[in-house]
């Protein structure tokens, strides 16, 4: 056997990716520090507003609002509305109400960002096969890359705390909404599109009057998945300083307080169930091909 085949991996072939990355991150932080600080402050301001707003609502009003939303989303059914809002009351009995509101605020803002940024990207992707080929591996990467990997740079850019948590959650949770917006737009009935074209609709008219409304159920399914993924990030996000239910889980873990961990964990599950039923309900309701409303 020739000697080079028995050698270990050649040292000379090393690509210093880690060096480049570290240098790049440092350079970004040094050069665009103001930009990152600006983003941090804006997001923080928004978060504080939403959090205060939620905190100012009396608990029973929140329960009633959620009940009304579930009732509407489920097609005016009473039982889901009662049982799901009951889950929220249960979280209150665990003494985790304000933590739940904090988590809710972080979630709402992260979801808002995924919608504002994800849907236009999805629209662009549906229009261009080339963009789709480019973005697909990136989206795959975002979903499969262990989140710990980008927690560190996120903290370097945005500091420890809720804002970093929102950004990390965004990175993790945005792919499904992009994908499903793209999918929904591509699945729109070709004959309906032809009809719009045959009547002389412009691209813009076709998008707003035909494509988006018909893709809406699929887009809502994307929002649903995005929220579920965001909730999966809650505990991890607490490791970079996010408050709320995730922090309680972490505390239970650190102090060996199994009961606290269970309560906080259940609370996260309950929030997830409620959010899932609401978004899935609207996804179904807005589907024009499903009979009955």
């Amino acid at each position, binding site marked *: 056997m020739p000697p080079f085949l028995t050698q270990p991996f050649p040292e000379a072939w090393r690509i210093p990716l880690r060096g480049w990355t570290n240098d790049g991150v440092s350079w970004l932080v040094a050069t665009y520090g103001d930009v990152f600080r600006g983003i941090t402050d804006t997001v923080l301001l928004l978060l504080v507003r939403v959090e205060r707003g939620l905190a100012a609502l009396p608990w029973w009003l929140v329960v009633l609002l959620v009940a009304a939303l579930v009732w509407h989303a489920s097609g005016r059914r009473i039982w889901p509305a009662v049982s799901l809002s009951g889950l929220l009351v249960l979280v209150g009995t665990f003494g985790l109400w304000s933590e739940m509101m904090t988590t809710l605020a972080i979630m709402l803002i992260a979801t808002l960002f995924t919608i504002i940024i994800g849907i236009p990207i999805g629209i662009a992707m549906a229009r261009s096969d080339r963009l789709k080929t480019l973005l697909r591996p990136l989206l795959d990467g975002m979903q499969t890359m262990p989140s710990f990997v980008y927690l560190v740079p996120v903290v370097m850019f945005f500091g420890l705390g809720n804002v970093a948590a929102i950004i990390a959650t965004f990175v993790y949770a945005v792919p499904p909404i992009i994908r499903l917006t793209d999918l929904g737009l591509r699945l729109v009935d070709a004959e*309906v599109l032809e009809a719009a074209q045959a*009547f*002389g*609709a412009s691209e813009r008219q076709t998008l707003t*009057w035909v494509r988006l409304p018909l893709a809406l159920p699929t887009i809502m399914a994307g929002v649903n998945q995005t929220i579920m993924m965001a909730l999966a990030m809650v505990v991890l996000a607490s490791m970079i300083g996010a408050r709320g239910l995730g922090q309680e889980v972490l505390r239970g873990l650190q102090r060996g307080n199994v009961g606290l961990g269970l309560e906080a964990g259940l609370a996260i599950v309950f929030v997830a169930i409620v959010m899932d039923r609401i978004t899935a309900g609207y996804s179904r309701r807005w589907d024009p*091909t499903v009979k009955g409303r």
Partner: protein
Amino acid sequence: MTITSQEAAPNGAEAHIEVEDLSKVFGHDPQSIVPLLREGVSKDDILARTGHTVGLRDISLRVERGETFVVMGLSGSGKSTLVRCLNRLIEPTTGHVRLDGEDVLALGPRALRDMRRHKMGMVFQRFGLLPHRTVLANVTFGLRVQGVSLAERREKASAWIERVGLAGYEQALPRELSGGMQQRVGLARALCTDPEVLLMDEAFSALDPLIRREMQGELVRLQQELSKTIVFITHDLDEALRLGDRVAVLKDGFLVQVGTPVEIVTRPADDYVRAFVEDVDRSRVLRARDALKFATPHATERVEEARGRVDASAVGRVAAEATLGEALAAIADVGGPVAVVGKNDRVLGVLDGTTALRALTERPEVAKGDGRV
């Protein structure tokens, strides 16, 4: 822009849509196939050799203002491609399309949109309605695209909804309607912009036979009032003969014959067309006046003899536009030849039983050059 009834008269023979040497090839480099088309390489060979699909080849035809022009052919013969080339939902590979003498293929994006908005309406096989919008919103779609005000849209749409027999369903969603009613919505949507041309791609093919006949009748009725120029696609011979002022037959992208229903039935251009028309009910397609042309010299003699009696009103009479079936019934009734009378009671000829039966049972010969009729 409105068409006066005079301009719309079918015998005016004014070309509304002209198609010249139109070809369409699907694939990644259609232009490279054009020389093969010229050499006459077959559709199958082109597909096998180059992976390109021939949709249409060298189509030339004229659609006259106010006529219903039916395009017929088997599945894959290029019917949908042809009708979509007229409003450029499909871009032709070579050739010309002219609407009112204006070159459609030369239009820029904006002019093309304007043409689609104002001059052509289209009706689709599976209706192509917006499932999340009401009947009213669907019918007003074309006007909304044009930027017409809400009030005007409502007014025009309501009138058309009523005219196609859907009054009271304005707020219904498409899925709440039967297929026939949905296609009425499709028809009202196409008519609502008051286009000169109506393109209908297998508009009734998705409907039950009974509803289908009803819609055909409805279209005939509307067309009598409107005199639009209609290009109607179908793979159904009965439908073609019932609706068409003229019928074009497509095969593998070629235009094999254009003619009136009677010409298509009695003088098919080739075996493909003959296979189409073989089982047709001639008693319903042929008119009494057409049957006269089946007289033999011998019969003509006897007919001359009868003509004397016609003038004396001694025999039955039947209108020239009556169907052959009606003429046969009349012959049976009077027990002898009947006079075929045209406008102003002018006697066009005398039809006897033998001639009528020959018209009914003749197996059409494939037309070779100059033939009978």
